[in-house]
């Protein structure tokens, strides 16, 4: 007569809480060298508040309506240079004014394989044109009334 043995399967053992202790605990480097571009004045205010938080590599810009960018301190920045060396661009918009900049950013990002995410802030989607301009390029569009969503997105992306 054989004695039944209680033998956990590989999956059952591996998924147990006790086995979690043996997961390799290597430090996680920031995953993204992000550029955050605010397309209008209200979005620029959001960008300034976001920039006040500590980030690893994220850099913040404002658009001036026709595809020229500025650093938050007002210094001019060339879009082409801003997008060099990045792998993700997060575009912030609250109204329709940034359509041209959105399209320019989207086109360059599309060509260079830079993932583009758009956060459109507002109730009732006052930024329909900006959304439409971003739609062909933005891998993700987050339409939200809550400014904190932009912070949460950047945090989750480890920028």
């Amino acid at each position: 007569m054989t004695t039944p043995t209680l033998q956990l399967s590989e999956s059952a053992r591996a998924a147990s809480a006790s086995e979690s202790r043996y997961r390799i605990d290597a430090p996680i480097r920031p995953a993204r060298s992000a550029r955050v571009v605010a397309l209008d004045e209200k979005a620029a205010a959001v960008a300034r508040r976001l920039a006040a938080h500590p980030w690893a590599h994220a850099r913040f810009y404002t658009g001036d309506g026709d595809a020229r960018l500025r650093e938050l301190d007002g210094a001019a920045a060339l879009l082409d240079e801003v997008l060099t060396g990045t792998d993700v661009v997060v575009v912030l918009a609250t109204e329709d004014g940034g359509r041209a900049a959105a399209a320019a950013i989207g086109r360059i990002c599309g060509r260079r394989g830079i993932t583009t995410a758009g956060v459109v802030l507002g109730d009732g989607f006052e930024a329909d044109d900006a959304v439409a301009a971003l739609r062909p390029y933005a891998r993700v569009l987050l339409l939200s009334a809550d400014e904190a969503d932009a912070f949460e997105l950047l945090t989750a992306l480890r920028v």
Partner: protein
Amino acid sequence: MLRKDINELLTRTGPGTPMGELFRQYWIPALLAEELPDNDCPPVRVKLLSERMVAFRDSEGRYGLVDEFCAHRGASLWFGRNEGSGLRCPYHGWKYDVTGQCIEVPSEADNSSFCQNVQLTSYPLVRIGDVLWTYMGDRATQPPLPEFEWVHVPPEQTYTSKRWQQCNWLQAFEGGIDSSHVTFLHSGGLKTDPLFRGAKGNEYNMKDTKPFFEVADSEGGLFVGARRNAEDGTYYWRITPYVMPAFTMVPPRGDHPVHGHFWVPIDDENCWTFSFDYHPVRPLTDTERQAMIDGHGVHSRNIPGTYRPMANMDNDYLIDREAQKRGETYSGVAGIAMQDASLQESMGPIVDRSKERLVPADSGIIKARQKLRKAAIALRDEGVTPPGVNPEHHKVRSAAVVLPQAESFLDSCRDAVKVTPGVPQASV
């Protein structure tokens, strides 16, 4: 990634925890009606939100959900005798009605009022559709009953199953708003599953493996739109509604029934996945219903007499590497439900989200976590009723549509994502 303290907040649902209190604002599925099929049938052990209870159906057909343990010596009432309009502990004969009120203590004098002071904790248990729902919160704030379409269509138009999932509710639920995994993990099912195959929309799914996403607030939660290229000048949109705290619907395919899930924490390391299929305007065919019973689509084949899937972590989910090589399944695990569960359970009982590396395509998950966290804190600090409690928020549908590229899915699908009785689902 998510900070460890926020991960703790979102994953712990026991009494007194912020997320536990959030869940206690809602009617949640507790059991399938089939588990209490007859008056005076055997009681059923139920654990929800880390509370152990027994459910029973008394001689008059009333449902009760009460503390599992007799107030006398703490014996389990699962051993109770369900008879004469109450559940009697077989140890010393104490008897309780469906409200948990003790109605007999045989050792006391016949005219004793002792039992009037003995009351087990109990929660309402109400049948709607094929599901018994409970509300485990403060009676003073008990909301109206749920209005989800799947439990309100005629019985011949709906089917619900449930399965035990051996991980925290949040990592199971997050799969429901993560549309980008479908093209990979479930690619085999799109071709072969009788509840999915044949739809025109499947072709768009398979041709365009890099969907774009739009995530927008709804009154009760979120809409997550996944967009793929369709014919010239058009996009194929799959729209997933999320109703807080843990209800999602899968966008439909062709005229197949529409399916979805409601995840309910059992404790912090286990949850129930309630899975449903329904058709808004026609009965399910015999073939469709049998496919659901056989574990196709979002359902699972369970070990007879249990709600544990036959493919589970104890048998390595019956993984078949040869079927994987042949292209029948993407992961080697058969069935949509267990393809999801195998990977979600593999993360461990409660995944450490501080180790994640999310990408923009995970925005639906990021946003859902944010909504849950905000709602739990607003409830805890200010007593704010969370989204999804109002039954009007339940009247949503998923949709699959082809739209001109310039159109917004939110604007174009306002009617499609609302329940309109007698109108079929918007599907491709």
